[in-house]
């Protein structure tokens, strides 16, 4: 067994010198660079692979953190003329889907975009739940909010999410009113419960490495229903800020209506907010209390690792990431840029045992499709990116961004497929919650469509691949590098190359399509490693 390489640096305190070549330990092979990019972006491209090889992982991350944010979804919708009365109602979402795919596939600030998508599966909204005008702009604004903070600070992200009209609608506390003793009316408890359970601390107290903290051999619950009821008072009085005269109403944070805010005592998580404390101050105290909870680092850290790298990280890996969440090396808590750097540069992520039967994760369908487009240079031929809903599970992905069925996302972080060896071993496999006898066929059916002729205006001519088609060995090495990096067996590469070679040499494009289809269909690719 080879000696493990030393851990990659996990501190952002040492600024890399622009002129220095990366240290030998940080100079990846193209295959390693590709695998890294599959974790850090929506998928490798030839240019990004070359970039990572040239400057190393750490500098690539630093570049991405410093990259200017690309055009927001909201601004793209305005620029393409969607800020009109025609788009005011609910149910018109196609342009939102267009801009989401546009950035997943083509945004140059890929780390920020990929991280925002990961956070959209923690802070989950569905555009259909947005009840104010121009809900499509609401979906755009929400994803923009996540992107704005995905390399920033967790506390800021949580506040922006909490104040967003979109989350206020999704979890129904928009317009929630203080308790009324006469009628028995209570504040809406929805957000109060889920902000703890899903967005910050989870259900049970955790050790810093993400394992359960036990007391007398039992898990310790993080909150009680009384905490939910106390916290619910904090979220009273918040509502849409200003009139619904244009899509900007979807971008403005909710405003406090003091008349509807509960001024009674608020008790939650051991904190007492005195009677008479107003809404803005109560919110600050609540969010500070939540963000300071020791669970947040391991809880959020585990989910980021799961979304980007592997479904079942070792406690040591979680512990290292959580330590960076707690302190980024400069005494700052909740530095998400540093946390993502820690997730991606950790020795477990960079030097995994690629032969381990439990390492890795199922690539979720949205990422598979975007990865194909990025790998093979697919782009919108007319600049419209008009790709409709991909929710259908018989001929599409069974998944479409911002279309999760509930705040519990498309899949739970602790989902384990029942009655399987995976479950018997106590492992989780979140993406298997949307993997079934229908969806596996649907993915292959959709794959056949887009590999063959692109999809709607998203097209590619496979020029680089056609140029290699005379030599199917070279073609396969190229395709495998782009899709799976160094985590794809030479044996499978070989059998695919041999099979593709049986397609007559003059049908170069068919050879390319067949090769891509075979790689993208095989479980060795579907399980990212």
């Amino acid at each position, binding site marked *: 067994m080879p000696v493990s390489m030393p851990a990659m640096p996990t501190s952002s305190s040492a600024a890399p010198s622009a002129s220095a070549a990366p240290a030998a330990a940080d100079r990846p092979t193209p295959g390693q660079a590709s695998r890294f990019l599959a974790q850090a972006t929506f998928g490798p491209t030839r240019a990004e692979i070359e970039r990572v090889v040239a400057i190393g992982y750490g500098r690539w991350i630093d570049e991405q953190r410093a990259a200017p944010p690309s055009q927001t979804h909201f601004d793209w919708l305005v620029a393409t003329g969607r800020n009109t009365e025609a788009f005011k109602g609910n149910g018109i979402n196609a342009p939102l889907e267009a801009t989401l795919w546009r950035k997943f596939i083509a945004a140059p600030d890929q780390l920020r975009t990929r991280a925002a998508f990961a956070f959209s599966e923690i802070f989950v909204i569905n555009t259909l739940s947005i009840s104010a005008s121009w809900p499509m702009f609401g979906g755009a604004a929400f994803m923009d909010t996540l992107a704005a903070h995905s390399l920033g600070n967790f506390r800021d992200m949580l506040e922006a999410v909490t104040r967003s009209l979109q989350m206020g609608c999704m979890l129904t506390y928009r317009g929630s009113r203080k308790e009324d003793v006469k009628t028995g009316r209570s504040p809406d408890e929805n957000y109060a419960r889920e902000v703890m359970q899903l967005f910050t601390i989870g259900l049970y107290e955790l050790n810093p490495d993400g394992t359960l903290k036990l007391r007398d051999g039992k898990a310790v619950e993080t909150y009680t229903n009384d905490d939910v009821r106390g916290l619910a008072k904090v979220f009273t009085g918040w509502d849409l800020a200003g009139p619904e005269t244009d899509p900007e109403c979807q971008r403005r944070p909710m405003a406090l209506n003091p008349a509807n805010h509960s001024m009674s005592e608020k008790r939650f998580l051991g904190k007492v907010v005195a009677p008479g404390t107003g809404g803005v101050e109560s919110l600050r105290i609540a969010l500070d209390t939540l963000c300071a909870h020791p669970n947040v680092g391991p809880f959020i850290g585990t989910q980021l690792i799961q979304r980007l790298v592997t479904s079942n990280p070792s406690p040591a890996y979680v512990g290292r990431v959580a330590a960076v969440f707690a302190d980024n090396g400069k005494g700052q808590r909740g530095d998400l840029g540093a946390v993502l750097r820690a997730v991606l540069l950790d020795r477990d992520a960079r030097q995994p045992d690629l032969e381990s039967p439990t390492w890795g994760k199922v690539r979720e369908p949205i990422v598979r499709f975007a990865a194909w487009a990025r790998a093979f240079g697919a782009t919108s031929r007319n600049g419209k990116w008009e790709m409709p809903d991909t929710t259908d599970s018989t001929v599409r992905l069974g998944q479409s961004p911002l279309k999760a069925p509930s705040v519990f996302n498309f899949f739970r972080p602790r989902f384990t497929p029942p009655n399987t060896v995976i479950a018997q071993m106590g492992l989780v496999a979140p993406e298997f919650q949307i993997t079934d006898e229908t969806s596996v066929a649907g993915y292959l059916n959709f794959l056949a469509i887009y590999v063959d002729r692109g999809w709607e205006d998203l097209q590619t001519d496979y020029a680089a691949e056609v140029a290699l088609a005379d030599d199917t060995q070279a073609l396969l090495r190229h395709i495998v590098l782009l899709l799976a990096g160094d985590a794809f067996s030479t044996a499978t590469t070989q059998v695919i190359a041999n099979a593709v070679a049986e397609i007559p040499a003059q*049908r170069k494009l068919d050879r390319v399509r067949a090769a891509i289809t075979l790689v993208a269909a095989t*479980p*060795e690719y579907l399980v990212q490693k």
Partner: protein
Amino acid sequence: MTDATRREFLRRASLLGVSGSAAPLALQLAALGAAAAVAAPAQAAGGNPAAGAAPVNDYKALVCVFLYGGNDPYNTIVPYDPASHARYFQARADIALARDKLSATALKPRDALPGDQAFALAPGLAPLLPWFERGQLAVQLNVGPLSVPTSKRDYVGARVPLPPKLFSHNDQQSYWQALAPEGATSGWGGRLADLFLAANGNATFTGVTAGGSALLLAGHHVNAYRVSPAGSTPIELLQRDTYGSSTCTALLRQLITQSNEHLFERQHAATVARSISADARLRTALARTTVAGAFATPLAAQLKIVARMIAARDTLGMRRQVFFVTQNGYDNHDGLNDIHPGLLRELGGAMAEFQQALDGLGVARQVTTFTASEFGRTLVSNGNGSDHGWGGHHLVMGGAVRGGRFYGKHPELALDGPGFVDHGRMLPDVAVDQFGATLASWFGAGAASLNDVFPNLRRFDGHDLGFMEDPAKA
């Protein structure tokens, strides 16, 4: 250590669970869930799955309609006698249904309720009224997850174990389906179906979901099979030569179905293999079926494919099946009276149409349909909705149902009374285990098996709530 022996070492290490310094979180939680239940005798390894079941020479199916989000029980089975309605209205004036809107769906049970108690179906469930009147629809009142019988004093005084994570969507969905919190590896519908697996000519179709992921249907042997409303889904790439190459097509089939060492790869390939083999069988069988009805809504479309699969039962060689369909949107913290009526219209219409179709197929007495939901909701309003609750009311429909009746008791509508805890949550007095066991008994499970399928059942008086006919008469 060579690569080959290292792989073997790692494979064994992973299987033995020694690859980490601590057990994965899911295992810890699942173990805690298991500890919360009475340890059931483990089924003997390799034992006959049909042990404990009566000989099977007939057909029976259970159909679970899971109302995701937590259905509001008070606006579904609405208090209708004047005194109860007044208390209901007072408790939730913002979201209550007016009494005069309920007269058309007032229920006249065959067995009188205590006092002057009366209920009406929500107007959206009007299509189900004829089935109640004809004795094929029963209402089970106030059922929910319980570890042991629990009084309000027990609850407030923390005197008895409670189900884990009350009021939490995902854990209560798991508890309703598996009697264990999230991370459970089998559901009671699957454990029940395990008992009858040997009777079925095609094991794949023993547990079928037309909705999404269905923990309810996972057994120790049974796995849920997912159909779309159109039936099974063929893989088009395998129906023709891939880019004109039979070699590529054969390789594709091999690659997507081969059993690799990686556990996730193997699981994915097993799902694909099942998809391919099931499609070949099911497409042919369904082509010969006809089911009357429009089945226009998403829930109705799910029930239609269930009806079609029931129609194909003989072709498929099925004797016992459990089906799972789902309807989203019941988490009505907001806009209860804007959203809920539409959901109930869809539910009432779909269930009525389904039962009509089963009548047409001549299997009304052989299929029992029931609703389930992770929890009820608070009696009190939050302004225009209700919050997560606990006990709820559920419907049981079918020709073998002793319908036209209510089962269980509805607590007095008083927040400070013994029937409510935590500011408006109805404390169940019937356990999910008892509700499920009543269905399972009818399905054919013997008394001894019920305790394996429902781990806490022995803690409750009576595993038969009475809403099903004696299975011997079925």
